[in-house]
């Protein structure tokens, strides 16, 4: 008899096999992190109820089982290995195993060269992710699966990590997308992530087996795998127990049952975890703290029967909706803090109904709305004003501390911080999509451990050893918490530790501060998360200074909105009255725009009186039916320039250029060069989702930047087009533009052709010319490139190459000159029309609409003229920077920052691709250059992600700060 235990991140599975490897007993239970206790119970049960168990061999497997196994002297079997053993025993002939667990995703290739793949540390989003998403939709797993079966459409949701996906889903919910479609989209995202992240170029074919909890419980998820892989996988009997069974099969040590049960129940972990000082010394200190903060309060007044003038403020946030009603004397008449279970419209309707019911004679003179759901709520209920969150929060904070210097708001999904300089919002910090471990993060942890958030938070207040969990994203945090539990940390320690980590994340990752001196001493903290006293205390301790936390901390957005409406004055609000509200109806239709290649998925909301509101659009086109004015947008011009290089038939046949990374700048050069050598130059065109999907199974590194990932698709597209030779050379060096200390490309741009050559099977069937070329040495270039081409085209002559090279260099220069001339033109026109100018800076490939997600168009929709870093970088002389200025593309950033520093009408917005290591250096430097001249630095992180909500907040806040928001 053999016993195997599989201790996973959320569940324990146990299997007992007889000597013929038949299942005698199996159990599957959630352990709520009480691992040893649960394990002890299971073992006791087996010992009492299964005959002969006393003499069984036992082994442990599972991601959370390692520590327990070690300290109890039991054999530990790595879980993927255990799966393999079990599959080989029970399902011989299996080719591929796909196993999703609580927090792991694995693919095992069993036939034809055994390979095992596990998700990297950055790829969350499996079982726990689906759980999280289900709770976001307010359904359980079963309902979630059922919902998905009823889907009509699938949305694209970022498939990189759970946090990203969540930021995609939230706006969809807010725009009124259907839950069933979202559920299905989440499944699609999980499947894409597993396949793209783990297959890494290897075909998933043959007998496919699905294992693990999520795949066992969710038929629709299996269906989606079948669909994407174009196969029919099986989910065998006992699919939950393969790891446990594998451990059992590997077990060959009999144990003293009694002793092990004894050890397991006594196991308390090593107690070795890094921890911080307790939040409070004693009860007295806590009480002082509570009383100090209770002073920051607002006056209240009963709304019952209120007859006077009133102002309504609404904050339709990502996870919660807040509404307040203020009297004309700023007394709080009524307030509501509601959780947003998907669609904010019915919640606001309910809120207004309540207001009209309590005070039928109330006279509403002004109203304003802010938050993610601003647009839909404003349209649905005819609210007077829509304002950007930062302005709402600033307005509210000023009310508590007129000379406030720094405001930090930690909400459910996001962190917003800004500095106030001369009475205006100066510097804005928003959390990037990767670190949105905020309020909902604490909530999720609390729920996962079986507590309400209030209970959980209060547990942390008097923890003796708050765990040091670092300041990283949610996915990492999950594992850190597990580790701490393993090491013996209590729930109290973890609760306090998580509060500290939220604070550290905000301070060191989002704001990038090193202490209070940088932020100023006058700080107002707000947002629902700061109602949690543990977080508030952690913030004060970490900053070493007391702060103001208004009692209405969670309502500050709505309060600010109401104050804003009050400030705007007016006689009567346009907000729907009680009667109109009764007739209110809201119908949602989902459609695709189709007016340009972005093909935005639109949500068309129709209201009772026939008013329509369209969401999901990047530009005004689906609303006005006119194409946006492109004359002041250099991104559009640059894209057009590149599209003008068309193939010319030639004697040497077709040659393909993949439109990825530096090809966005080198195209004029290579196109001219190769065309003049007699090639018909075929490009892979501008990226879209389909192009990405063509190549995403061959990406070896899931944490590389999205622009690099796209290259795989472009190469595949060329091959699919029948191109037999692809020219994509490696380039360590770029042109020396005389702006920096050196002129490198970044390692990814420089050597990506190597990755393509080594990871795409289809490339082996064609010729890929990926040799190293040095365009930075025009004199040597022709001879060197001639040697490379000669290998493939023996008839080519050096003379031909020389003349083609000469033309290529000329064309490149002409191309750059055209961009600069356009830049001059746009700047001149903007000056004449008195428009603000943004230098939207990034890399040449950020012109790709699939990479920039139409951010350029969104910005120009605000009436802003857009130039690029390369169109102004030549306007300054070389200057010294505090970092080594050694990459050509990045030198342009510094130069652009330096240039605009002296111009009142210009601001810089930097696009940063997620995962760009080089930008960790450039962003700080660009910020320093701008701030030394009193400019605001704005950074936008982009990825596969398509959510523009956060980007809009940033742009609108910037416009508000420079006094341009209309």
């Amino acid at each position, binding site marked *: 008899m053999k016993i195997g235990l599989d201790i996973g991140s959320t569940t324990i599975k146990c299997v007992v096999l007889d000597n013929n490897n038949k299942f005698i007993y199996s159990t599957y239970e959630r352990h709520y992190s009480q691992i040893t206790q649960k394990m002890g119970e299971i073992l006791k049960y087996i010992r009492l109820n299964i005959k002969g168990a006393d003499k069984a061999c036992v082994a442990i497997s599972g991601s959370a089982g390692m520590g327990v196994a070690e300290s109890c002297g039991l054999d530990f079997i*790595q879980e993927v290995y255990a799966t393999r053993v079990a599959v080989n025993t029970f399902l011989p002939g299996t080719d591929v195993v796909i196993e999703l667990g609580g927090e792991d995703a694995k693919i095992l290739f069993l036939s034809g060269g*055994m*390979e095992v793949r596990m998700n990297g*540390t950055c790829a969350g989003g499996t079982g726990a992710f689906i759980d999280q998403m289900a709770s976001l939709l307010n359904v359980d797993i079963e309902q979630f699966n059922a919902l998905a079966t009823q889907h009509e459409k699938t949305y694209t949701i970022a498939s990189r990590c759970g946090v990203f996906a969540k930021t995609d889903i939230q706006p969809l919910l807010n725009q009124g997308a259907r839950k069933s479609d979202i559920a299905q989209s989440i499944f699609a995202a999980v499947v894409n992530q597993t396949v793209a992240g783990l297959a890494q170029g290897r075909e998933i074919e043959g007998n496919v087996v699905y294992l693990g909890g999520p795949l066992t419980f969710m038929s629709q998820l299996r269906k989606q795998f079948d669909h994407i892989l174009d196969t029919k996988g099986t989910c065998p009997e006992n699919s939950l127990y393969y790891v446990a069974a594998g451990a059992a099969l590997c077990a060959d040590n009999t144990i003293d049952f009694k002793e092990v049960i004894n050890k397991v129940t006594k196991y308390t972990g090593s107690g070795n975890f890094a921890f911080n000082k307790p939040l409070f010394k004693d009860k007295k200190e806590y009480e002082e703290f509570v009383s100090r903060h209770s002073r920051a309060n607002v006056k209240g007044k009963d709304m019952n029967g209120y007859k006077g003038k009133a102002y309504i403020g609404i904050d339709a946030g990502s996870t919660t909706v807040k509404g307040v009603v203020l009297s004309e004397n700023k007394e709080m008449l009524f307030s509501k803090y509601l959780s947003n279970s998907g669609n904010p419209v019915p919640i606001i309707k309910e809120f207004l109904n309540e207001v009209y019911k309590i005070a039928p004679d109330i006279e509403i003179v002004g109203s304003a709305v802010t938050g993610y759901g601003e647009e839909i709520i404003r349209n649905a209920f005819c609210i007077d004003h829509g304002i950007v969150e930062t302005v709402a929060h600033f307005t509210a904070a000023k009310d508590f501390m007129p000379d406030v210097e720094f405001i930090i708001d930690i909400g459910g999904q996001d962190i917003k911080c800004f500095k106030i300089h001369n009475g205006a919002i100066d510097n804005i910090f928003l959390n990037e999509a990767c670190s949105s471990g905020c309020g909902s993060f604490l909530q999720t942890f609390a729920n996962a451990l079986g507590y309400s958030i209030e209970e959980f938070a209060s547990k942390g207040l008097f923890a003796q050893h708050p765990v040091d969990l670092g*300041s990283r994203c949610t996915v990492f945090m999950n*594992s850190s918490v597990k580790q701490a539990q393993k090491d013996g940390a209590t729930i109290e320690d973890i609760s306090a530790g998580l509060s500290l980590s939220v604070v550290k994340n905000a301070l060191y990752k989002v704001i990038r501060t090193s202490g209070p001196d940088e932020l100023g001493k006058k700080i107002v903290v707000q947002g629902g998360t700061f109602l949690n006293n543990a977080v508030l205390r952690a913030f004060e301790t970490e900053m070493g200074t007391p702060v103001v936390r208004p009692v209405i901390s969670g309502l500050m957005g709505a309060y600010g909105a109401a104050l804003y409406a009050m400030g705007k004055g007016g006689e009567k609000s346009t907000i729907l009255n009680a009667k109109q509200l009764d007739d209110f109806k809201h119908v949602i239709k989902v459609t695709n725009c189709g007016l340009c290649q972005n093909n935005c998925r639109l949500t068309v909301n129709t209201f009772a009186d026939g008013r329509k509101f369209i969401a999901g659009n990047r530009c005004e086109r689906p609303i006005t039916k006119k194409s946006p004015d492109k004359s002041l947008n250099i991104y559009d011009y640059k894209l057009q320039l590149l599209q003008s290089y068309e193939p010319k038939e030639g004697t040497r046949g077709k040659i393909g250029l993949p439109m990825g990374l530096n090809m966005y700048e080198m195209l004029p050069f290579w196109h001219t060069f190769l065309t003049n050598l007699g090639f018909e130059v075929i490009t892979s065109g501008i990226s879209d989702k389909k192009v990405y999907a063509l190549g995403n199974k061959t990406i070896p590194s899931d944490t590389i930047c999205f622009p690099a990932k796209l290259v795989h698709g472009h190469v595949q597209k060329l091959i699919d087009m029948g191109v037999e030779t692809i020219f994509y050379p490696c380039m360590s060096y770029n042109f020396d533009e005389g702006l920096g200390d050196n002129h490198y490309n970044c390692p990814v741009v420089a050597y990506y052709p*190597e990755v393509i050559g080594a990871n795409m099977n289809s490339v082996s069937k064609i010729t890929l010319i990926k040799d190293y070329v040095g365009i930075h040495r025009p004199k040597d270039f022709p001879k060197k490139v001639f040697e490379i081409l000669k290998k493939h085209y023996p008839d080519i002559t050096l003379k031909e190459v020389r003349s083609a090279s000469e033309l290529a260099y000329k064309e490149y220069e002409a191309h750059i000159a055209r961009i600069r001339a356009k830049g001059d033109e746009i700047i001149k026109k903007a000056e004449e029309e008195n428009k603000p100018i943004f230098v939207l800076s990034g890399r040449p490939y950020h012109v790709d609409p699939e990479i920039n997600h139409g951010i350029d168009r969104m910005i120009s929709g605000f009436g802003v003229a857009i130039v690029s870093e390369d169109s102004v970088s030549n306007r300054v002389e070389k200057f010294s920077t505090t970092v*080594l200025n050694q990459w050509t593309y990045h030198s342009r950033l510094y130069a652009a920052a330096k240039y605009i520093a002296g111009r009142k009408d210009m601001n810089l917005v930097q696009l940063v691709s997620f995962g760009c*290591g080089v930008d960790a250096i450039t962003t700080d430097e660009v910020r320093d250059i701008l701030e030394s001249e009193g400019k605001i630095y704005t950074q936008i992180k982009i990825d596969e992600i398509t959510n523009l909500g956060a980007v809009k907040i940033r742009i609108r806040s910037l416009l508000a700060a420079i006094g341009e928001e209309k």
Partner: protein
Amino acid sequence: MAKLEYDKTGRLLFTKQMKDEYTILMPMMAPIHFNMLKNVFTHYGYKAVLLETNGPEIAQVGLKYVHNDTCYPALLVIGQFIHALQSGKYDVHSTALMITQTGGGCRASNYIHLLRKALKKAGFEFVPVISLNLSGLEKNSGFTLTIPLVRRLAAGLVYGDALMLLRNQIQPYEVNKGEAQRLVDKWVTELSKEFANGKGYAAKTIDENLDKIACSFTEIKVNRIPKVKVGVVGEIYVKYAALGNNDLERFLAEQGCEVNLPGIMGFMLFKVDNRLEDIKLYGGSKLKFKIVEALMNYLTGLETSLIAATKKYGFLPPSSYQHTKSLVKNVIGYGSKMGEGWLLTAEMLELTETGYGNIVCTQPFGCLPNHINGKGMIRRIKSVDDRANIVAIDYDPGAPRVNQENRIKLMLAVAKENLNKEIEEQKAKEQEKADTKQKKQKTATKK
């Protein structure tokens, strides 16, 4: 007290007077090598201190003063420096810091600038930073790399490589635990003494010393039971520094493995060779080529001595740089030079070839060159040599150890299975041999 002097660009200089008054802190990477280097500096009159601090607070300090998306080695090295300055152990007004600077296209060339930014943030802008490089970047009057000093440093690295290699091949099998490490320590002291007396770095003495060192390791009593052989490659800092890789070497030892870390000499040769490759690929000065070639030859000479000495006493010598280089001929181009470049790919092939095909490929999370040369080439390596069993592990301040160890254990589970198979096959062969021998004997006796 030395006056603070700045150059034209505003960089704080390390002056001659500082050389006498200041303590120079060095960050830890590879303990054997860096101790040798430290001793070389000490004997050149610098008050060098090698930081031996560790613990999670170093990463925390790093996170506080360095951009959180910067690579992990920068966080740790800078964290270790500032942690030391804040510790109160050193008079911060007479302390300088020393850091290497490569000047390649990878982010690492910027560490020194990030360090200066961090120092400013932490209120230590008066602490001078010395750049250790061979490219002539950032000169300081109080610190000059003279040719004799460079030769001693190079010799130090060769000895370091030899001691590391010998220890790694003996330690897992030693009968009396701790013997190999004690021998390493003994040699570090001994060699440093020689350096102090101006000896130990001439080509001939290096030959003799390496011979003595290798010989001394044969005297350690060993029990050669079969163990899983694991190679470790990766970004240079996380590859060697226990602080960076969560004490990977110790973990592997505890799992019962023999570990092979390719030496630092290979990396030095690679960095020098890049200058030759650049000229070959893109054109350039012939004179420069000749000069660099001479340096290359000098280093190759040292490498040859190392190979000869270890081979002579039955140890597995490191493969020659040229051989390692030849392994990637049709795998990746020699122009891929940023970070560890093609050498990383080549080392994995070399390890597989020499029986260390179970490989941990370490890199800081988001390491750009390793997207190409590490993770980007694993598939290719397996198609060239299917004995390769590689696991890529990312390191960063948030990556929990338990996840890393779990992934390594998966690699080890496969490795153990392969080892057992080998042992079985070996046994079967021996059995077969014995059987045939017996048969022969039988037929012989019959006759």
